[in-house]
């Protein structure tokens, strides 16, 4: 894969994928809390693979990721993905011992997000020989 192809693949992976969803306007923020004590494979891959796509399609949505230490966890901080709404309520999605697909599915269900139509997703392509 050449340099430009790699760049284009990276850019397309930000815009297109399972996480390309649009959250409703009543969602005011997302907060993912990861455990540093226990394994958090699913949550980490949700952060790396899906959250960029969520952020790309919702540019004004504030998303924070926090690593929770053992002491903070003992003090009562929850390991989860919490979704805050306009009316002050919040919903939390379980992330422990779950895969990134399961977390995404639960997040879409809890937030009421909708999939972005295929034709609205920008896809960057290298011009082929015939286009030139």
């Amino acid at each position, binding site marked *: 894969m050449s340099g430009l192809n790699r*760049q284009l693949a*990276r850019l397309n992976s930000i815009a297109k994928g399972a996480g390309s969803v649009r959250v409703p306007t009543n969602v005011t923020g997302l907060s993912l809390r990861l455990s540093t004590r226990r394994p958090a494979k699913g949550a980490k891959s949700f*952060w790396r693979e899906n*959250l960029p796509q969520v*952020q*790309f399609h919702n*540019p004004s949505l504030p998303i924070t*990721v926090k690593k929770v230490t053992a002491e903070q966890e003992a003090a009562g901080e929850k390991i989860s993905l919490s979704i805050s709404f306009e009316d002050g309520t919040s919903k939390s999605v379980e992330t422990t011992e779950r895969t990134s697909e399961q977390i995404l599915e639960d997040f879409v269900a809890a937030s009421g997000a909708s999939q972005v139509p295929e034709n609205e997703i920008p896809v*960057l392509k290298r011009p082929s020989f015939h286009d030139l």
Partner: protein
Amino acid sequence: MSLARSLLLRSGNAATTTAGLISVSSRPLLQLINPPQPRYGSKKKRDEKKAAKSDGAPSKADAKQLAHQREKVLLRLRQKREETKKATKLRVEAKNASKSSNFMDIETALRYLRAAEVGRSAHATTISLTMRIVAEKGAVPVNTKCRLPKPLDEERIAVFTNSSELAAEARRAGAVLVGGDDIIDQVKQGIINFDKAYATPDIVSRLNQVARILGPKGLMPNAKRGTVTHDIYNALVQASGEMTFKQEGTMLSLPVGRASFTDLEIVSNIVTVTDAIRKFMTDSSAHNKKAYIGKTVITSTTGPSIVVEV
């Protein structure tokens, strides 16, 4: 008389054959004598040269020199050809930058970069601009400074002063910590919560107490660096957010913002920086050596790079 005698002796038989007498008149004899030759170098070398001349072929040393010279000329030509090739490549690259598949306007590029940096702390997400400087050979490399409208880091500035007027001025210019002996006492106790320090001349003698603490940290105010001055307001205003940048080879890379900045803040930073670069290029174009900004790429700490137009 002695000269004539020696000449006669050298001429050998010619002198002795004239009736066994040594003739005083040297006139007919002088024509037979060779004039003395100048003697340069050793006789052996001269003989070698003579031999070479008589052959008509160049000596080994001459052939070696010629080969060396030819090699030098060829090398110079090759270098020149490579330089021309490189310059052409850069010019073509700059011309075709907007046709690249990952070319975008800055707003869209920032949307991608913010998505790539999601969940990272604002301080760890530097958005930087990398540009190619296309310049003629001999042009002055870019080395200038400018003040960003929105600096990347807010510095905590401390001002040491005894005068209340200057203290008020310093606070107006954005100093966080202003005071005299109270701050010196704090520093003595090891509490240093500032990134830059200024002082007025009236307190410098008292600052010597903490020179050993501030000095190694690079925080000691110094008249040479312009951090000891009466005109504290202008010194603070001029230095705040000032950024120096320097061309490395043909590339110039500099930070222009954080992912947490708004589009407008980043764009105004980019405009300020490119204006400063262009101004430097026009000011320093001595001997008509022109330079311009070529292909420009915007990127973030962990994000992809995107071609933009500046």
